[in-house]
């Protein structure tokens, strides 16, 4: 943190910074974060970008998702019409929904490639075992996000792909029936399923992924980025 010039000739941004620094000790809090060393090979090797790309996609998904939630109506009668409305009538609606779609696919690809890098570089070894476990959970949550978002537009693809997906999950021995019952909320895909998928997609999964991402990043910060290939 630069030392601030004293007196009345401070620049506006310095004044604003000082106002917060006087109250929150920003200098003490931020210096260890912004000065924390990143290994040189992590800065120069593009393979180390994959986690960051996944996180960027996540941020885009949050932003565009909030936008979509303002217009979307999660009932079988209204859902399709509201998505059509977003695509045709809402300003920038088509772009934002398409961005949500592309960011979701890119995020899943980035998470998978990120996991492959960690695997082949052996970065999951001591002391990072638990961060690998959190990471695999994040992969599961990311794909579940994709699966739960699939049903929401309530078009032919959405309906039938969900039918196959819940059917597959339902065939797992012992727990399958319960998983199917929890997801579908009845005997067939309908209003109950939609409410559940919407709640999972916009409430349960976002809260879970936010907590796990914090854990993931905190562990990277504590344990450092792993060594060279």
């Amino acid at each position, binding site marked *: *943190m*630069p*030392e601030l010039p004293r007196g009345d000739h401070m620049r506006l941004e310095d004044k604003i910074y000082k106002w917060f620094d006087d109250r929150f000790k920003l200098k003490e809090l931020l*210096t260890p*974060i*912004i*000065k*924390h*060393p*990143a*290994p*040189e090979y992590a*800065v120069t090797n593009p393979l180390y*970008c994959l986690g*960051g*790309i996944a996180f*960027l*996609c996540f941020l*885009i998904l949050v932003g565009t998702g909030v936008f979509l939630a303002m217009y979307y109506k999660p009932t079988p009668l209204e859902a*399709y019409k509201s998505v059509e409305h977003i695509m045709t009538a809402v300003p920038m609606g*088509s*772009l934002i*929904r*398409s961005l*949500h779609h*592309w*960011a979701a696919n*890119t995020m899943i690809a980035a998470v998978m490639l990120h996991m492959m890098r960690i*695997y*082949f570089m*052996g970065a*999951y*070894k*001591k002391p*990072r075992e638990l961060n*690998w*476990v959190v990471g*695999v959970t994040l*992969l*599961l949550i990311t*794909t579940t996000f*994709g699966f739960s978002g*699939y049903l929401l*537009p*309530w*078009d*032919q*693809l*959405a*309906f*039938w*792909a969900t039918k196959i997906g819940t059917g*597959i*999950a339902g065939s*797992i*021995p012992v727990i*399958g029936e319960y998983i199917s019952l929890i997801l579908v909320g009845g005997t067939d895909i309908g209003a109950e399923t939609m409410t559940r998928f919407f709640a999972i997609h916009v409430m349960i999964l976002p809260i879970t992924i936010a907590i796990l991402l914090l854990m993931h990043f905190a562990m990277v910060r504590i344990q*450092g980025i792993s*060594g060279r*290939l």
Partner: protein
Amino acid sequence: MSLIEIEKHEVEEESHEPVRIRGLPFFPHFLLREVVVMCLVAGSLILMASIYPAGLLKPADPFDTPTPIYPEWYFLYVFGFLKFWTWNIGPIEAKVIGVTLPMVLWYGLLFLVPFIDRNPSSDIRKRKIAVALGVIAILGILYFTYYSIVYH
């Protein structure tokens, strides 16, 4: 000025103890790289979203099964394995194995990777088994993805 002083100070401190890593500060070096990549990715996403908008088919109709229906690309291998596995093992039906193996066993193994692989080395030349298994897993996923598309 003081930015440079802090860096000097850190360098001095490091020279007293054994150097563990050659590092650059998170800000601005690491973050700048990250922001450049983020701009490129965000730009590409906006481009893709404008050229290929997200699709919307006809409204859902429970009485009209469309053909073919594919799951999302990241589930194709699960679907492909289900199609591929047609052998009952004892009293367990083929369908149950086809579902359980990729969903439970595959993800279970993924979770256990750091506890199965006790080899402390992270040098790729000293991890031949782990690397070979990783390559086999990737080839398997690619094969079953291909299988699910061709033998739909």
